[in-house]
């Protein structure tokens, strides 16, 4: 590609690579600063956040140990509930909304159309609109535990998921399903044996989008869950920083680092899928 480019273009490209390398370093600097500070004492973070740890301020992994066991609610419990909520919600969303989307597109009755347009409508509605009433409803129906909150996520996340699945289902030729039909498959068998394998890439995209949403969501679990018993990682971080009294900066930085490490690792491993998933989600506009 570069072989037939003129000498001038090549120089420009080299300069651009240099500029972008610099920019890329600036881009990851915030994370490096958090990492460095998570190894320092609390007072030195507040006073000199951009200094490398010295012999006096270096704490090793002390902040991580304090952070994990800190306070009346241990961090590992928050992490555990975050995982529970994310895994169950995403699994439930994938299974239920793909089935619903398929049914809506195949039967195409008035009721189905109404559901479909309500789903699209729900994507525009800001969470603040339903914030108060949703948390009351969840309380009344006892959906306020990590084991039941996935039902709320299914309800509020259905819009985007149904929309994305429908987009793909419309492109599946009916002939494929009719063949299965001739062989005596009922609707359930046709869906799981014929359509699910075809929709694999859509499942991955939806799973990625919903995981990013549920994992990072703060306000919904904060309002719905019984906070004395259950917290998630974002709620925990908010409590560490936003609570009254002394803020332990060291422990907070360590816990922020604990959130970032899995995100970065997963991103590096499944980068291709993540970028593809995010792109397909963006097309909704």
């Amino acid at each position: 590609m570069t072989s037939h480019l003129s000498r001038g273009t090549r120089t420009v490209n080299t300069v651009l690579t240099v500029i972008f390398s610099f920019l890329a370093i600036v881009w990851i600097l915030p994370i490096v600063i958090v990492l460095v500070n998570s190894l320092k004492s609390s007072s030195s973070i507040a006073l000199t956040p951009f200094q490398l740890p010295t012999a006096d301020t270096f704490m090793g992994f002390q902040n991580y140990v304090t952070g994990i066991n800190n306070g009346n609610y241990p961090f590992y419990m928050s992490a555990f509930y975050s995982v529970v909520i994310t895994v169950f919600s995403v699994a439930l969303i994938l299974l239920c909304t793909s089935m619903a989307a398929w049914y809506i597109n195949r039967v195409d009755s008035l009721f189905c159309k109404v559901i479909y347009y309500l789903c699209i409508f729900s994507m525009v509605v800001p969470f603040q609109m339903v914030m108060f009433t949703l948390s009351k409803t969840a309380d009344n129906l006892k959906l306020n535990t990590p084991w039941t909150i996935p039902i709320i996520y299914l309800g509020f996340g259905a819009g985007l998921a149904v929309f994305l699945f429908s987009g793909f289902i419309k492109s599946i030729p009916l002939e494929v399903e009719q063949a299965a039909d001739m062989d005596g498959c009922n609707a359930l068998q046709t869906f799981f044996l014929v359509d699910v394998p075809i929709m694999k890439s859509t499942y991955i995209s939806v799973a990625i989008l919903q995981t990013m949403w549920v994992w990072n969501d703060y306000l919904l679990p904060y309002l719905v869950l019984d906070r004395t018993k259950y917290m998630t990682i974002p709620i925990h971080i908010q409590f560490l920083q936003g609570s009254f009294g002394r803020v332990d900066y060291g422990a907070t930085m360590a816990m922020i680092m604990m959130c970032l490490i899995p995100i970065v690792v997963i991103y590096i491993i499944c980068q291709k899928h993540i970028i593809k998933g995010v792109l397909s989600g963006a097309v909704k506009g």
Partner: protein
Amino acid sequence: MKKTTKRSSAAVMNRSQRRSMRAFAPLFLLPTVAAFCIGFVWPFLQGIYLSFFRFKTLKFTTFVGFDNYEKALEDETFLRSFLFTVAFTLVSVTVINLVAFAIAFVLTKGIKGSTVFRTVFFMPNLIGGIVLGYIWKMILDGVIIRFLGSTLALNATYGFWGLVILLCWQQIGYMMIIYIAGLQNVPTEYLEAAKIDGAGSFQILRHIIIPTVMPSITICTFLTLTNSFKLFDQNLALTGGAPFRQTEMLALNIYQSFYNSVSNMGIGQAKAVIFFVAVVIIALSQLYFTRSREVQE
């Protein structure tokens, strides 16, 4: 074309198949529809209903008509947060889209290390709002305390630009990905033909590249517009509205009138309805505006 094939095969479905599908309706539809009603439809309708009532708990409600809306519009903090949100949205949408487009433009030129740069720039998008807020609070406070002798919590201007920087860091990578996908659609033959005809780089950009990536521009402005207008987590974590609720955005203002005030919650609900209407208007008019330009080009 697609429509006709769909219709003719749908006609095939109408007879026995459709009837046999109906039997499965509860299984396929019920879980999603039930959850959708609990998680969206019912709270939404109840929200609109409650905006006409005065209440502190749901047990005692008094009908007050449009009183809550009047009070909401008279609330100074609400109007200020509205202006703050509009200013913030305008600045961040412009900056994010320009920078993201520029980066995408360079990265599609095939410079060395494009894939690595793309990976790095996109990464912050995966970090949640609360965590992002506290990362930047630590960094920005460090800079502001040392060089400007103030803090984020003491100066609303620093708070404003802090939020802009934060959102740029989070969203530029995301928009860059969408622009890259759009730029890859620009036909190379057109570019070569234009070069042979002696078109300058600016003319090529304006008459060939921008019209082709117009769909990406629509999507990106839509996403950045709604994301900045609805911003909550980042606002809460970075400034929390300090100083004196001056850096409060709309979503946070609504939250405060529900949960950090002793007065009538109906006002909060009325604000939420106004907020919802504003979001719908912005989304629809923006889509209409850019879509009409797409056709024109």
